[in-house]
């Protein structure tokens, strides 16, 4: 069986824009789930509101399309009622960081057994390009026409501090590494967050000189720095290049988890 069998063929092609990275992330997730040999009837995909949250609609398994930011609360409920189900949450940066921020840190604190895949495209793509908590400093959006002047929410660091069991960050260019990270996250008991930086050529790219899809993916590839290399540079006291983001596995540990079937 291949990961393509998990798609609802009658719903394809997706409504995503040309070159949207969300399709890549769905591919990688389904590949990881398929490699582990999970069954359709034992897996639940949960999502909130946004471009990223349309993903479960294209997958054959049971799914919940829930209220804005509350996907993690619904997923906790599923785990409470049916601990035997595998729960995977698709969410976006506006969903997880802005509106669902409190649900997010408390799900990390409780360490509920689920896998959260956050497609971080730095903007509210579906509603017309408003700035989100992860919009980089200086980026132009419809709500920050002179460049964003606020700090950036580092979701992975937040999850590490709040107590998640497995945290990793990759981009939509690193498909093999992303698939491996998602597989590790699905296997880890407890809360695991995989933050994926994806391109948004329509809402973010055309306002920030990244209209071309291939150019945006090249940008993601060039500005990603591996965590080990970053740590080595800091240790040796060498200067770290600016506007780079770290990718890699941030933490894997064994805090006591909730919702793990005995």
């Amino acid at each position, binding site marked *: 069986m*291949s990961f*393509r069998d998990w*798609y609802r063929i009658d719903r*394809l*092609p*997706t409504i*995503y824009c*040309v*070159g*949207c*990275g*969300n*399709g*890549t992330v769905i*591919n*990688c997730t389904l*590949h990881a789930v398929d490699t582990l040999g999970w069954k359709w009837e034992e897996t639940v995909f949960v999502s909130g509101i946004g471009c990223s949250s349309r993903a479960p609609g294209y997958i054959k398994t049971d799914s919940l399309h829930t209220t804005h930011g509350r996907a993690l609360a619904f997923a906790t409920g599923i785990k409470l009622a049916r601990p035997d189900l595998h729960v995977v949450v698709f969410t976006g940066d506006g969903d997880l960081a802005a509106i669902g921020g409190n649900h997010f840190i408390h799900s990390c604190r409780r360490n509920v057994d689920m896998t959260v895949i956050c497609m971080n495209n730095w903007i509210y793509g579906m509603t017309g390009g408003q700035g989100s908590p992860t919009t980089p400093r200086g980026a132009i959006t419809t709500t920050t026409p002179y460049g964003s002047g606020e700090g950036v929410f580092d979701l992975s660091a937040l999850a590490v501090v709040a107590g998640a069991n497995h945290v990793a960050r990759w981009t*939509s*260019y690193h*498909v*093999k590494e992303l*698939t491996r990270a998602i597989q590790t996250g699905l296997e880890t008991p407890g809360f695991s967050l995989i933050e994926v930086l994806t391109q948004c050529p329509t809402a973010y790219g055309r306002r920030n000189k990244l209209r071309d*899809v*291939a150019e945006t*993916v*090249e940008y993601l590839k060039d500005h990603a720095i591996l965590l080990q290399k970053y740590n080595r540079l800091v240790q040796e006291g060498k200067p770290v290049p600016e506007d780079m983001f770290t990718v890699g596995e941030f933490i894997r540990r064994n805090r006591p988890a909730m919702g793990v079937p005995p």
Partner: protein
Amino acid sequence: MKLVIDSDRCKGCNLCMLVCPYRIFKEGKDQNERGIIIPELDRPERCPNCRLQRLYGRTVCGLCQMICPDQAIRWDDEKENEPQKVVIEF
């Protein structure tokens, strides 16, 4: 096995051109009936997955299929009596 781009699903983002190590995908020239310029295949028999998928029992490379956001790339079986071409570059 042969490499196929599904013209019903492809939206023409050309991400496959970026990742293919053999540069099999080329920028297309003509629009299809939906007004989308889908990439052309440059000697697709060079793709290692076409030759080795059966032998190894798994997908070899497969980067284009994984990165394709619209699930448009797949490998099909040849029909019976279809002429097969195998090109190996050293």
